[in-house]
């Protein structure tokens, strides 16, 4: 039986941890620059985000959409694809959800799942465009997904200020029917059952990738498309499937924002949830468990930054800077290995 047990790769945790620590260190330079004590500032940051049940609830709410977009990016990465388009996919998913939410009046047991499924479909379809272009025409998905982000933004912009305008002077739709809304877990925070959905999604991603034939094929395509082709795997088809699933996950982020957080589609509601998903995915080493943890970290940073902003002279944008730095360090694995004097991968 010895051959079946794989040792837990502790070293895998080291690199993301180092990236975060380095980023926080550089962040503390900025804190010093504005005349504050890094320990105080970070202390407030973490206390206000994780120090009480209520804070944790807020943190989890902030983390939820990032869990979804992080899973989306991580899933695509596993299949060898760069999904920079989570932002656009979540907008489409959000719109699909809001459309179902405001257009029908069904019993909750149908309405809510329907809205959630709609968000998955919306995101999946949007992502499949880029997937199809890659699979059939060989166009790299990076630029296409970036372009689709903007197209989605303007498309939903128009839809929400035009045909689906809520009627008031605010650029948003009407509220969704209560039968389509996710329930709050810990009022007055805005944490909803979406977080359970996210955990389930992470589990499902894990199962798909490591426990199914489809996942075996997707990961094979991501690791070595030539060998995958040799092994009879249909590379173009798997490309499209991977993008579709990735898009569906991003669409769920949209669902959380509409069905959970705002209950209506507010124009430009996403502040970089899609891009942060890239950071979360990378930091989580493209593994569902890592993504959840990374999302919680980022959620904590965002929640805590508001308090830190209020209570110290440190602007909340420090967090954005730190998040950017984390991505730098995660991407430059080479650099971290040098710093930590780790053996380089062959």
């Amino acid at each position: 039986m010895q051959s079946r047990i794989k040792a837990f790769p502790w070293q895998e945790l080291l690199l993301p941890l180092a990236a975060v620590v380095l980023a926080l260190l550089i962040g503390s330079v900025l804190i010093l620059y504005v005349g504050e004590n890094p320990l105080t500032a970070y202390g407030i940051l973490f206390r206000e985000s994780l120090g009480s049940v209520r804070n944790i609830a807020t943190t989890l709410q902030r983390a939820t959409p990032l869990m979804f977009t992080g899973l989306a990016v991580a899933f695509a990465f596993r299949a060898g694809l760069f999904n920079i388009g989570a932002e656009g996919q979540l907008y489409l998913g959000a719109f699909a959800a809001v459309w179902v939410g405001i257009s029908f009046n069904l019993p909750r047991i149908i309405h809510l799942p329907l809205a959630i499924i709609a968000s998955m479909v919306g995101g999946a379809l949007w992502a499949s465009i880029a997937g199809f272009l890659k699979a059939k025409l060989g166009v790299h998905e990076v630029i296409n997904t970036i372009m689709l982000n903007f197209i989605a933004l303007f498309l939903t912009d128009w839809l929400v200020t035009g045909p689906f305008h809520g009627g008031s002077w605010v650029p948003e739709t009407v509220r969704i029917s209560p039968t389509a809304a996710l329930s709050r877990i810990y009022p007055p925070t805005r944490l909803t059952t979406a977080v359970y959905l996210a955990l389930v999604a992470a589990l499902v991603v894990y199962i798909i990738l490591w426990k199914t034939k489809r996942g075996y094929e997707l990961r094979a395509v991501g690791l070595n498309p030539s060998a995958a082709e040799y092994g009879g795997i249909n590379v173009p088809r798997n490309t499209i499937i991977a993008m579709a699933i990735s898009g569906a996950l991003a669409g769920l982020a949209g669902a959380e924002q509409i069905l959970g957080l705002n209950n209506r589609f507010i124009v430009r509601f996403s502040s970089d949830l899609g891009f942060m998903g890239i950071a979360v995915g990378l930091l989580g080493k493209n593994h569902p468990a890592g993504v959840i943890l990374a999302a919680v970290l980022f959620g904590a940073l965002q929640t805590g930054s508001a308090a830190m902003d209020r209570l110290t002279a440190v602007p909340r944008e420090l967090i954005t800077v730190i998040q950017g730095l984390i991505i730098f360090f995660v991407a430059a694995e080479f650099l971290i290995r040098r710093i930590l004097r780790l053996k380089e991968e062959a």
Partner: protein
Amino acid sequence: MGDILAMMFNTTVFAAALRMATPLIFAALGGILSERSGVVNIALEGMMLTGSFAAMFVTYHTGLPWVGALGAMAAGALVGLLLAVFCIRYRANQVVTGTAINIFAGGLTVFLLRHFFGAAGTSPQVPVIRDITLPVLSQIPWVDRILGRQNPLVYLALVAVFLVHVVIYKTPWGLRLRAVGEHPQAADTVGINVFKMRYVAVMLSGALAGLGGTYLSIAHLSRFSEGMTAGRGFIALAAVIFGKWTPLGALGACLFFGYGDALQMRLQDIGIPTQFMNMLPYVLTMVALAGFIGRAVGPKAAGQPYIKG
């Protein structure tokens, strides 16, 4: 019908198109230099934003907008250096690093804005680079209303297109640049320092993008506000692709996109939502990439770190 045509083809719109296009032109030229050397530059947005902030900041402290412009170019070049170091030296993925820079620049500019100027979301007003009237061009009828009186940066942008074109196609450095982006190993075997060329190209791209940002904060407007680039860096990237990685092509694309921008408001009056005009650059780029209007293929080696031996 005549009304619509008159609305679309008049000197006011053309003049506005030129102004809208100017920041895009600078950024696109930067993008071309970087990509031609083999480094994909998704960070044009972050570089422009940094330039916008730096231009405002330096002008605020010196009172001299042209010095501000230089500051913006320096700041942009520094961001370029950051991209270059991570991508070339540490072989980080170019797309991820570019995204990181965009996020980082977005955060840092607002961080500094709030630290220095409080929580307003915009900076105080600063002196601007004023429009000028060109002696010859302002005498030609019809042309004078488009090109006769514009911001110096507009004229500079057009000159820059010409300069970059000449440099890329008519100088030894430009030849080497193109070689390095297509087949770095071949360039290496004839003794060209691939790394150095890429560093220079990426830093130049930062400087140019910074200049594009300058136009936004101290020429077009007179202050810096949060996120004022509003995706222009990505439109510039679209222009690079749509213009097939050539300065003249990019100029055409930028003018076209600028024209669409200028037309937005007017088109809305006849029922075309502005958002569709906004979408246009991105849709067109996708179409170009898919090959429906002739295949748009970039420098062959773009995106891969060069590993010697």
